[in-house]
């Protein structure tokens, strides 16, 4: 029942597209914009795999309709690296083996980008609380915590 034309900025680029009014933002990103780095896990806001930045804030893209993003500025995991140069968090996740299957990783990266911006020198407990909204079934979180710690210190004193 119905479609709308929506305009948004996505990873720095302006885009205009038609979206069914009941289409979830997560599906719109993947199916219409072919940005498949955003993963869809539980589809009810629990797992965090679909987390993106909407106007700078980390949100679940499975709990938004695509039409609600009309006029918004969105960043997905595809927007983190600068060409071949990985984002600090991507680099530390790589170095600390903070991913195994990788399904949850893009959502965790997006959550942690927002978290480290708001809380640049977090304690381990703060990191664990911030990670609680993203489920990872492989790693046991230890290396994710280490990678976030490493990213925080690298952002504080860039080499």
């Amino acid at each position, binding site marked *: 029942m119905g479609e709308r034309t929506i305009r948004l900025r996505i990873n720095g680029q302006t885009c205009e597209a038609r979206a069914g009014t009941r289409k*979830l933002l997560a599906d719109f990103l993947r199916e219409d914009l072919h940005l498949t780095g955003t993963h869809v896990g539980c*589809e009810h806001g629990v797992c965090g795999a679909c987390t993106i930045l909407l106007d700078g804030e980390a949100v679940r893209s499975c*709990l938004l309709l695509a039409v609600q993003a009309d006029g918004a500025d969105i960043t997905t995991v595809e927007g983190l690296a600068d060409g071949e140069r990985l984002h600090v968090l991507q680099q530390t996740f790589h170095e600390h083996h903070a991913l195994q299957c990788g399904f949850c990783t893009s959502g965790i990266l997006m959550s942690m980008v927002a978290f480290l911006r708001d809380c640049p020198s977090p304690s381990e407990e703060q990191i664990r609380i911030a990670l609680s909204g993203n489920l990872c079934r492989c790693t046991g979180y230890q290396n994710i915590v280490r990678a976030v710690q490493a990213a925080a210190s690298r952002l504080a004193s860039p080499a």
Partner: protein
Amino acid sequence: MKPSSFEYLDPRTTEEALALLAEHGDAAKVLAGGQSLLPMLNLRLLRPSQLIDINRVSELSYIESRGSELAIGAATRQRALERSALIRERCPLLLEAIPYIAHFQIRNRGTIGGSLSHADPAAELPAVVTALGGKVVLKSRDGERVVPAEEFYLGYLTTALRPDELMTEIRLPAQQTDVGVAFLEFSRRHGDFALAAVAACVTTEPNGACRSARIVVAGVDGVPYRNPTVEESLVGQPLTSATCEEVAQAIGRELSPQEDLHASSEYRRELATVLVARALGKAAAKAAQCHTGAR
């Protein structure tokens, strides 16, 4: 799964939203932050004919000090409350409870009015607003009514909100200088729904005796649970740890929580009892500090 189809309506003003509600009533659902509604749509637990999205009604998002009250627009995001200097200063109980609401990603979208209207019995905000003696403003095209939180909650996921009404504002008494507050919650993992949570507000006499107490328990009943008889029995008593324990036991005896896969009824009641004693002790200690000026 994906939502079934609906007519998507996105009014820009409260007036427009109320007109749409008057027209569609029960067939429509109001979409605020969507952090409970979208899961229900995705799982097709709900199939509304119309979805009235109030996210573009900017006049419903504000936090204002009005004399002895705080007025909060119903569509104000929980994250905005968490970051508000006004809330920190004038409503510390709310600030204490907010970090327990799901995860920061959810609070980035979730609204105060959405959570209050959804009326999940394990949710933090209904308990806080009830403990504070807050009120909600319900508007329809025919006018508005101001309903105390305690009268707003009727049962499990059930409120006094009529199909043509929209919650537009929440009014909370600003904290007086002599009140001690505490919010405590237990869940298996941070951000999960509470197995039990307690909000407590206490004032004391300079000699340490209780002047007033309001204690609300979430997760143990269909509505935020309060026991005025037990609260009154506290007045005039010294708030020692023994008194707090007795009151907690008295409240615990009255509870018969639902059993589910997360916790047995008995376990929930035990948790609630322990949390009441702790929250009351913590609130009393803070109230006592008001008298010594160590606040």
